[in-house]
């Protein structure tokens, strides 16, 4: 199983992480639109790590199965946690003076989206899927 872990500590790591995501998507035969969707989603989630938790990790995994190409991304941090997940995925909600577009936007870009969060531990998992020709 192919896996890439990118430490997220400053904004250059955001660039690195989205680059890795795009590369894996390209190698697995995802088209430009899916590459852009995944890279953008990773960018949003890893920026949140820096902004709200300081640091964390982004693990990009080739989770392909027979007949299906799939990339799973797990973005994890040990920051304060998301107090109200429903609120956090509401468009426009931001505690960071942002647009509040990151989580709701990401959710619309990917096939799977899941947040697990408690004080001291947040994991956002996403995946994109493509049927192989």
């Amino acid at each position, binding site marked *: 199983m192919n896996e890439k872990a990118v430490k997220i500590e400053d904004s250059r790591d955001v*660039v690195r992480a989205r680059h890795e995501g795009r590369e894996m998507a390209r190698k697995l035969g995802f*088209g*430009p639109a899916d590459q*852009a*969707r995944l890279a953008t989603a990773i960018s949003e989630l890893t*920026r949140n790590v820096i902004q709200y938790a300081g640091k964390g990790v982004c693990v990009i995994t080739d989770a392909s199965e027979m007949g299906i190409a799939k990339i799973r991304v797990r973005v994890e941090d040990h920051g304060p946690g998301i107090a109200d997940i429903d609120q956090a995925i509401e468009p426009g909600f931001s505690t960071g003076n942002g647009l509040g577009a*990151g989580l709701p*936007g990401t959710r619309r*870009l990917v096939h799977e989206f899941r947040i697990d969060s408690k004080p001291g531990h947040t994991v956002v998992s996403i995946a994109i899927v493509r049927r192989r020709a």
Partner: protein
Amino acid sequence: MKIAILKLRDILLTSIHVDLTDEDALEFQADVLEMVKKTEAKGIVIDITAMNVVDSFMARILNETASMVKTLGAEAVICGMRPEVALTLVEMGRELTGVETAVNLEQGVDKLRELIKRRQ
């Protein structure tokens, strides 16, 4: 990462050709405004052909930069947005609205000239 901004007679041209960090993007915005002011340019074309990721932060920077340029009394055109980038932004609900756009640099310059003419 410094993005070069070129002066061509009364207009400015710039191309974002590398993957920018958030700090780079903010620096780019400040540089654009500084150059518009310093050179008294009538407008700027920002070429984003090379950008394969425009997330909500970058979209905001582009939107803001364009309207700040207008506030300085100049015009701004963003050109070369890739189809997959446009699609991703729309899907995220982050359209660039009120920003003048063009398919390529040539059309971007034409459009800028037209906008400048209108303003005068």
